């Protein structure tokens, strides 16, 4: 048996079209005899037989074939059995893949989602019905089930008090869809009290414990929620799967606030936004994660806030304003529209900002300041609280 390969007719084309076969199936042909007419975009060319034999066309007329792939075969006898040899490398790869690797294929999106949630696609078994690959939706489903079903291996090595989160719940265990997000609160001071209050008012979150580095209070409770141990315990608890998201309740130590958020997120621990139900959020406003927003705050339409900010009560982030990360607000900070606030900015109580004020990273604004239209506070600068006598009319401006 001899193969006739599709010829390279010019350097600019990868494939040729078979216009017609001049000989029929198993017709006898002589070396040099025309067997087919093929076409490129430039010319029509006749293909000659390379040897004597009986012709077996391998490409239908009107179809294209890649240059170098079989166009026809010649067999020595008219009734000789013909088998196309496995010439194509991709055929062999597919064969070896199917035998050597029985594991089901994961889509790129499924893998990424799994890896982001600490699953190893190499080892995790996700059930799939039918022949398809492991999809993003299946991983999503798997993750939801993992979160909502009680972990049988749940043990807490360091647990002076019983966690408030239910181990077995008569409703939730059977109907996991409405399961609340289990929140671990970092810090057990005044901020934590406020945080617990907010969480208590929401239906979709449940405080399951607090961590604090003050060992004197370990084992005690705060508004009924157990103070489990030091902040360093967060990673271990995450490994045990006892909480879904964390929140930093500390507002008085900004450096610690930044460290906790950045370290834990880098370890893959997700952060919740804890938002009081009285907060009003406008259209197209957006928020990162780890934000703590107290009662009667408002995000105007199209306002954007980053991650890990602490907004005390009555803070107004007016429309189209942009807030960075790790900022802390005292009560009653009033932004007008299109204000821009950078990262790690600390704001006191009762501050007013006119439109288009811009505050750069690490600035500190004392209570009672009024920032006029378009003013800019440069990086790291501190604007002190105005003296009481002049406070009413004080304008801070650069």
């Amino acid at each position, binding site marked *: 048996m001899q193969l006739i390969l599709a010829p390279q007719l010019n*350097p600019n084309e990868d494939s040729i079209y078979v216009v017609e076969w001049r000989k029929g199936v198993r017709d006898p042909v002589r070396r040099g005899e025309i067997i087919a007419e093929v076409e490129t975009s430039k010319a029509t060319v006749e293909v000659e037989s390379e040897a004597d034999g009986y012709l077996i066309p391998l490409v239908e007329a009107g179809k294209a074939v890649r240059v170098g792939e079989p166009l026809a075969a010649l067999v020595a006898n008219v009734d000789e059995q013909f088998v196309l040899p496995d010439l194509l490398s991709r055929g062999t790869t597919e064969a070896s893949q199917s035998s050597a690797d029985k594991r089901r294929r994961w889509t790129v*999106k499924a893998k*990424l989602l799994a890896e982001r949630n600490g699953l190893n696609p190499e080892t995790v078994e996700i059930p799939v019905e039918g022949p398809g690959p492991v999809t993003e939706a299946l991983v999503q489903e798997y993750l939801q089930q993992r979160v909502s079903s009680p972990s049988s291996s749940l043990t807490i090595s360091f647990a002076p008090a019983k966690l408030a989160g239910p181990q077995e719940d008569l409703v939730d265990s059977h109907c996991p869809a409405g399961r609340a997000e289990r929140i671990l609160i970092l810090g057990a001071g005044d901020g934590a009290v406020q945080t617990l209050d907010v969480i208590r008012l929401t239906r979709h979150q449940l405080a399951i414990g607090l961590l604090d580095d003050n060992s004197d209070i370990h084992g005690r409770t705060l508004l009924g929620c157990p103070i489990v141990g030091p902040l360093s315990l967060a990673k271990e608890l995450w490994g045990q799967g006892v909480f879904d998201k964390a929140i930093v309740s500390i507002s008085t130590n900004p450096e610690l606030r930044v460290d906790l958020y950045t370290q834990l997120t880098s370890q893959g621990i997700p952060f919740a936004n804890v938002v009081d139900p009285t907060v009003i959020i406008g259209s197209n406003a957006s928020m990162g994660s780890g934000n703590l927003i107290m009662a009667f705050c408002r995000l105007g339409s199209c306002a954007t806030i980053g991650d890990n900010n602490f907004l005390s009560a009555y803070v107004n982030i007016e429309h189209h304003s942009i807030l960075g990360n790790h900022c802390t607000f005292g009560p009653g900070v009033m932004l007008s529209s299109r204000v821009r606030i950078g990262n790690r900015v600390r704001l006191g109580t009762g501050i007013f900002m006119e439109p288009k004020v811009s505050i750069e990273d690490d600035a500190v604004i004392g209570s009672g300041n009024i920032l006029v239209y378009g003013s800019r506070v440069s990086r790291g600068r501190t604007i002190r609280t105005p003296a009481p006598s002049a406070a009413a009319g004080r304008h801070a401006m650069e």
Partner: protein
Amino acid sequence: MKQTFLESIRESLATILEKNENAYLLGEDIVDPYGGAFKATKGLSTRFPDRVLPTPISEAAIVGVATGMALRGNITIAEIMFGDFLALAADQIINHASKLHMMYGTQLDMSLVIRTAVGGGRGYGPTHSQNLERLFLGTDGLQILAPSLYHSPGETLKEAVASKRPTLFLEHKLLYPSPTKLGEVPPLWAMLTEGRWPTAFVKNFHGGSGDVTIISYGGTSLLVDEVSQRMIDEEVRITACFPLSLNQLPEEQVLEECAATGRVIVVEEGPTYGGWSAEISAWLHRALGKNIRAPVVRVGAANSLIPNARSLERDILPSINNIEDAILAVLSA
């Protein structure tokens, strides 16, 4: 058999010659029976013997003569056999064709199109495979058009003539035999923006927003097309944007598409250093601001010459694998 890229150009050239008695084609080896190195003018000298003019091997003079004829009211289409030879005509393009219509205190009409076959992938080696449009990107007064798989090169050519502006028209060698993908192109969806130089938007999904935006032009549309098809099985939703005009930033719609995904890859065939993709990336980073979710990734040739051997050429030129790696990089960021 659908019309190929090459056939679309050839048919358009015939139409231009037929409809305009003042239209001329100039170039090396363009007359029958040879019909041009890439056969774009095959048959035309037989039909229009007085207006298809075979030139000596004088690229500067080809562009210069065509410029002079166009300045005096003709439509001239010059063929530069390989894009690499644009270097021989660079002075005529940069200091004459792109200046004369602008530097005399008023705008002069000039229907001049310089067609040229560009790009690698055919094993032509270091001096017959380049994408030299980068050399002309900063030359104002020169329109640079690079139709992709999703544009009709023939219609683009007619528009270029109608625009009465000097135009560098880039035809990628790999596109010549490809049937153009206009209208329905399952499994992808393609649409063109409005306007004289439309950007082609090609999606591998229906409804909702995408995961990744790929911006590319001309010949690399073939790679992006292949990757977009493959990514359907990987659930990665891709919107590919192929601008037609390279001497200006793409339309607002491209920016909106990029803002929606925040993950953008810019692909070109030339080396990335100092290339078109650098300009596009700088634009995206400035214009998208916070909407960027991953740094823009650029895919292009290695900063080297284009070797002749198949294995070496594959190693230098951007590949499907490079684009897939880029997709993973922006999705993981």
